[in-house]
């Protein structure tokens, strides 16, 4: 591959497919982030806040029920125990601190279900930055409590009425806001997506997940499993493990099934395309119109996927698969009932995969599931599907 080593690319995936007006802002961000990540003071500032405020390191909890089911030693990496209830805050603390360093005076973000919006609003409240969150109008109705949470912390929530009125359109409108206010605004993107340097930067902020896991398992890790929408928790878990021999499994949302029109299995069913400033696998029509993604979990219904995941799929280093809404709901109930841990519906896909494939786990080996978020936000939604 000619482009394999090109800056900003993961094989042929990634890049900066943005209007010219954003190029200077991306250059500025690249330089600022490049400096920050080599700056000990910045790194220790991020680490301190994550430790004293967000609750890192997170626990590695042995799961008796999943161990029994698989014959392996299964552990849960408890990102659900972080402040705001999901891994998202690893990234927002880092990015908002970086924005402050860059002298930016305003933060914008997009959100689907509201988790990234809440995590951004949280970081902005902590650092005293004005915050505007774009959220699809449909999502503001479905996730009213998260809208309230964001507002409570001082953020402005803008309902997005363009397009399909969901996450993908919220990202479009956040990018458009950035185009208009590019001089004083930093866009805190919520996953390992978007134009370079975002996929790399967001991954780096989340890689604390994989690094801690390596330490906690003393490097003896055979399998790591994580759910994949845009792919931030999975990239954070996988990236530090790429050099090891661990088998890595990314679980996408198959919605009602990958052979229906209602799924989010971008890497299983997508084709190469360009959305939101980067090239990756994409759910799209034959004419290159982006299709809506579907999943029971709002955090996974994104029609694209981070470019580094696209590379890891193509290279075969990570095994990507997809499980349906139904299987995710089984995982959701299983962990709740067996362990007293209510996982997010996103995370439930990873649990569901493990339940459905217990024999593919190495006997006596060490398996870690990234428990990316807690399920409190999902209980109302899930109650429509589960009879108790």
């Amino acid at each position, binding site marked *: 591959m000619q482009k394999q080593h090109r800056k900003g690319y993961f094989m042929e995936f990634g890049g900066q497919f943005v*209007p010219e*007006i954003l190029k200077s802002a991306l250059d500025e961000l690249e330089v600022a982030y490049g400096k920050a990540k080599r700056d000990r003071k910045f790194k220790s500032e991020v680490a301190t806040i994550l430790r004293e405020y967000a609750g890192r390191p997170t626990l590695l909890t042995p799961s008796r029920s999943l161990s029994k089911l698989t014959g392996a030693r299964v552990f849960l990496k408890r990102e659900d125990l972080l402040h705001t209830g999901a891994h998202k805050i690893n990234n927002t603390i880092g990015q908002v601190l970086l924005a402050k360093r860059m002298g930016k005076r305003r933060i914008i973000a997009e959100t689907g279900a509201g988790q990234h919006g809440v995590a951004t609003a949280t970081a902005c409240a902590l650092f005293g930055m004005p915050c505007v969150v774009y959220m699809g109008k449909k999502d503001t109705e479905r996730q009213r409590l998260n809208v309230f949470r964001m507002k409570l912390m001082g953020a402005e929530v803008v309902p997005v009425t363009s397009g399909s009125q969901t996450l993908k359109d919220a990202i*479009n409108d956040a990018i458009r806001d950035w185009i*208009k206010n590019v001089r004083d605004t930093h866009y805190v993107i919520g996953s390992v997506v978007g134009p370079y340097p975002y996929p790399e930067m967001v991954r780096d902020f989340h890689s604390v997940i994989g690094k801690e896991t390596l330490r906690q398992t003393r490097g003896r890790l055979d399998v790591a499993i994580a759910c994949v929408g845009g792919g931030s928790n999975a990239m954070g878990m996988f990236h530090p493990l790429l050099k090891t021999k661990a088998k890595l499994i990314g679980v996408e949302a198959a919605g009602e099934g990958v052979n229906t029109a209602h799924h989010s299995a971008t890497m299983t069913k997508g084709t190469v*395309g360009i959305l939101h400033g980067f090239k990756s696998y994409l759910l*799209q029509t034959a*004419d290159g*119109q982006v299709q809506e993604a579907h999943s029971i979990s709002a955090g996974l219904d994104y029609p694209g996927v981070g470019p580094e995941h696209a590379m890891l799929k193509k290279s075969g280093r990570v095994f990507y698969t997809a499980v349906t809404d139904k299987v995710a709901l089984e995982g959701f109930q299983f962990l709740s009932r067996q362990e007293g841990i209510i996982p997010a519906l996103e995370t439930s896909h990873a649990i569901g995969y493990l339940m459905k494939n217990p024999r593919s786990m190495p006997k006596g080996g060490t398996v870690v599931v990234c428990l990316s978020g807690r399920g409190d936000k999902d209980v109302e939604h899930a109650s429509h599907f589960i009879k108790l």
Partner: protein
Amino acid sequence: MPRTSLSSKVNMNPIEERFKILRKQKQKALILFVEGGDPSFEVTRQTLRYCQEAGVDVVELGIPFSDPLADGPIIQAASFRAIEHGTTFHKLMLMLSEERAKGLTIPVVVMTSFNPINKVGLDQSARMMKHARVDGIIIPDLPHDEDPSVRTVYEKHGILPILMTTPTTDPKRHEQVLKRSRGFVYYVSLIGLTGLMRRSSFSFKNHVVASKARSKAPVCVGFGITTAEDARGIARFADGVIIGSALVNHLALHSPKHLSDASKKLIDSWVAAVKSVR
């Protein structure tokens, strides 16, 4: 050989030819943008024909995309309507071929997000465009240095890659755009999206004038140009004026069955304004 060799005067690209004539006549260019298929194929066809009749210099034909980043609400909405009507790149190229066969000679530039043509395939899309006698291409979400091979593909088929620059583009990049853009340079006059605007002053004037002096291709100004008055004001210092949202908005408010007299008058008013400048 049709229109591949650009150095030869015989086979000069129609956009370059048009600007050459304008230069001789000391006139400025009026470039109009229409969203293909909005509000209907019929209106798009009639608008193309009327632009030619009214003396518009170049038409930009927009290929609808579900997620256009640089567009404001007007063109976004037009794009969605067009997609809902079943508009595709393929159908628009067929339509343009038909219009060409019926005598449409006005230079046409395709304006599209990168994904629709990338999905069709660059070479395939270039061949379809060549068949429809498309003269240039603008890809707003493809910075000129992101994938230079894309430009080569279209240039090979005689389709000029038109590049965009902005008031805040880094000087080095700006120079590269001036050097590499073919046909004309698309100068984005505001830090923002396509849309309607009323101007009190043209803060970008000096930048445009300086750019003209260093650019091989003419420098045309677009984004946010709405009124005939503003078009005239900008034509005084730029080589051409590009109007998009104001036309798209007007077309959408009138009959989808045919190009309304009101829309024709609006086009006439812009032509008169730009052509009044010498």
